[in-house]
């Protein structure tokens, strides 16, 4: 047990350090590719890191005493779910903890009396309401295939690639990934562009180091989500990683070719397509199990 604990701590620490570096690089590549798709040259790949350190060095400005608390919650709970992922813990609890990371950011955005930030927060809540069921159904799909909620079971000898049993769940997961990454057409809780109706939505009232930490959390999120995609093809793991990267590229393409939709449309579409697809998959697995 003692050895195991030390080993676990080492794995966790390595990932806590490595994840934001990988995530930062990926988001640099994201900006580069996006720029090329829009016929721009784009910033250097390391630009996200430059931005991060610049924000970190800025003067600390706040609207009330509590904003930083929520930013911390946002970051810590993302790290906690990353640790649960790399230590191959319970997948469902991981989803709950990841959800709390978002809830914490929403609380932070709601804690100030700014209409932009408030509306951004409300929209983020609606987004959560749309994608959260799909994420949980994904977990159930994994359970029905592996008979366990532990991520470690995905890697066990007897399990084949999840993708074979869960094609529609995988599709649904990719669908909600767009929402979770706040990419177009589902980026209505935030907006990357200066002059649009929400200014920066959720993050309107965060500045300097607060914003830097939110960006950091975003990198963690990115790695967690790509890690979850990898689970669908965990053996050999490099195939899973390639699938994850291809999916990410697909997200970028979708981001660039689509315009933002309204929240009503999003809820209806996500419930119908996302939950629908995942449920169909789960029902057939269930029926197969019964036979």
């Amino acid at each position, binding site marked *: 047990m003692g050895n195991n604990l030390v080993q676990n701590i080492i794995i966790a620490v390595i990932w806590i350090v490595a994840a934001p570096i990988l995530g930062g690089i990926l988001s640099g590549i994201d900006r580069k590719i996006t720029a090329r798709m829009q016929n721009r040259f784009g910033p250097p790949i390391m630009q996200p890191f430059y931005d991060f350190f610049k924000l970190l060095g800025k*003067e*600390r*400005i*706040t*609207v*009330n*005493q*509590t904003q*930083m*608390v929520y930013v*911390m*919650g946002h970051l*810590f*709970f993302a790290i*906690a779910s990353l640790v649960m992922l790399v230590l191959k*813990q*319970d997948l*469902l*609890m991981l989803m*709950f*903890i990841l959800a*709390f990371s978002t*809830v914490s950011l*929403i*609380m932070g955005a*709601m*804690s*100030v*009396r*700014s*209409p*932009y*930030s*408030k509306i951004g*927060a*409300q929209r983020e*809540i*609606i987004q*959560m*309401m749309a994608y*959260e*069921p799909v994420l*949980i*159904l994904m977990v*159930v799909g994994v*359970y029905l295939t592996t*008979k*366990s*909620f*532990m991520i470690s*079971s995905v890697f066990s000898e007897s399990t084949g690639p999840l993708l074979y049993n869960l094609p529609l769940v995988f599709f649904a997961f990719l669908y909600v990934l767009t929402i979770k990454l706040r990419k177009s057409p589902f980026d209505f809780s935030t907006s990357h562009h200066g002059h649009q109706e929400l*200014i920066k939505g959720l993050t*309107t*009232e965060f500045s300097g180091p607060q914003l830097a930490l939110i960006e950091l959390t975003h990198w963690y999120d990115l790695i967690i989500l790509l890690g979850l995609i990898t689970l669908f093809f965990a053996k050999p793991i490099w195939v899973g990683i390639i699938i994850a990267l291809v999916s990410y590229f697909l997200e970028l393409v979708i981001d660039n070719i689509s315009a933002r939709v309204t929240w*009503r449309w999003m*809820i209806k579409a996500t419930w119908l397509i996302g*939950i629908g697809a995942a*449920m169909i998959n789960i*029902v057939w697995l*269930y029926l197969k199990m019964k036979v």
Partner: protein
Amino acid sequence: MNEYLLLTVAILLPAFSALLCYALRNKAVRSFIVVLTSLAMFGVAGGFVNLLLASGGTLKIGVDAHIIGWVIKVLDLLLMGYILYIGFTLRKYLVVVLTFLQLIPLILFEGGLLFGTPHESEIAFVIDYLSLIMILLVSIIGPIITIFATGYMEEHEHHLGLKKSKQPRFFMILFIFLAAMNALVMTDNISWMYFFWEVTTLCSFLLISHDGNSESVKNALRALWINLSGGVAFISAIIAIYSVYGSLSITEIIEKTKTGGFVGIIPLAIGLLCFAGFTKSAQFPFQSWLLGAMVAPTPVSALLHSSTMVKAGVYLVVRFAPAYANTMLANIVAVVGAFTFLAGSAIAISQSNGKRVLAYSTIANLGLIICCAGIGSKVAIGAAILLMIFHAVSKGLLFLCVGTIEQEIGSRDIEDMQGLAKRMPFTTFVIVVGMISMLLPPFGVLITKWLAIEASVNSPLVLLCIVLGSAFTVVFWSKWIGIILTMSYKNSYKAEKLDFSVRSALSLLLVGALAASVLIMPLYNIFIAPHINSLNLADKAAGLAGSNGGVWLQGVGNITTGGFAAIPVFLLLFALMLLIPYFMRKTKAERIKPPYLCGENVDNDVRGLQFISPADKVDVVVVRNYYLTGMFGEGNLTLWCNALAGAIILVMFGVVI
């Protein structure tokens, strides 16, 4: 002898205090009685824990069933008579009809006209871990709410401007209520249980109508007739069961149904008992009585929602869970609960009245408990009992908070609670912790939700309801927490003035809510695991185990299939969340800026109330939550949900007939 003493004190002491409260109409004396009774009840709860742990799981207490049986028969008749009187004087003939529907079978049955004089076992009280948990909830949370009420009712009557205080009556009913609840969960005689069941129905009528205005009387009558219809189902079930088994002992009934007795009229009888549980626990389509109960003074709502009344319903359903486990009835009970969880959570999103949000959340959580009882695996029953505990503590706390806030700001609307931290920092802290304990990891309610999902993977319909429902719960809680925590910069906070009784009740329940979550592992291992093992469920999996700082699910052959470790680590994270920003501020203060509105803020006010819009017009900023009434509005959903829930219940009866 010790257990006789405890039993007597647990039931008769509150009843005696009730009489004292009514007879001695002095405020100081009443507060003294309340505090003394509360302490005694805490002691009784502790005493039962000791006794039960020493006895190894069941306490059987024999009494002279003949004499007590006759006392209860007489009281039964008096009770029915009183309800008839209510029905006639308030001209609610539905109540009269429903009472006769109980009175006639009751007289025929108890009078021995049906099967001869019913045989009543000498072992009239059997206390196992499930009863013990209910005793703890009733005898700890109940008195705390009563203590709260001493301060609250004073203020309440001051607001109403009553000439003659109605408090003696109020406290009398509260204590009778607690006595009846304690008796209900301890007795093993199902016809006695029925009597105490009806006592709680009457008490809730009296408490809901306490203020005496037309709205409260109307809502109380609704509560009365809905619960009476459950009572009709209850007495019919008793007669049906007795006609087959010739026994009134709950232990014996469950044992017989488990060993091949679930045939003939018995499935229908158990279905009727579940139906009675649904009405009492305000499952859809019976939810309206609990929503209407909001008109009563806050301690009443807190009591109805946390440890008494609605918990009696789920107690019955969970108590009989082993009797109907793995039957079609169980599947449908699970669907009824899951559907209520979904519908309640969805409608809660559209509510801006704080008490209604809490009420819908209660309905939803009770649904989840019933759903788990229906699923009936070891994990599910464990989740059901855990949720009964966590929900009772947290919901009691939240109701008391909303009541306290309402007395201060004069509104129970969520939107009016914006910036509450400035006016009531103490209450804000307590209510936010209470809500967090309903929503976030690593607190108990979330753990049970997680267990419920993991337990329901094998029934897709139930699963879908729980999954959607838990997404909705996140929506309404986070909206509410967000609005309460909306604040601008303020230099220092000073706790508000509250009556000592109110402050101590809130603090006690706050500690209780935190302790229940932190101690989930020992709580499970000591009280719940032995109970589940004693049920001898057909489920082959090893069930739940608490170890390594968390809870683990174990499948067939003790293989770990899920788990959540390191609950303390998450508590540490919460501490860090608060401490790091605090010390950052200590080392170097931040610059304070007003929020960005839609233009320049008037006077650069850090609160951000007004801004200068085009043409130098001053605009006031109003920020509100979304309530999505187009999608989740009460008006849109209630009718359809009721129709659907009614249909499910009809299917349930169709299956068992």
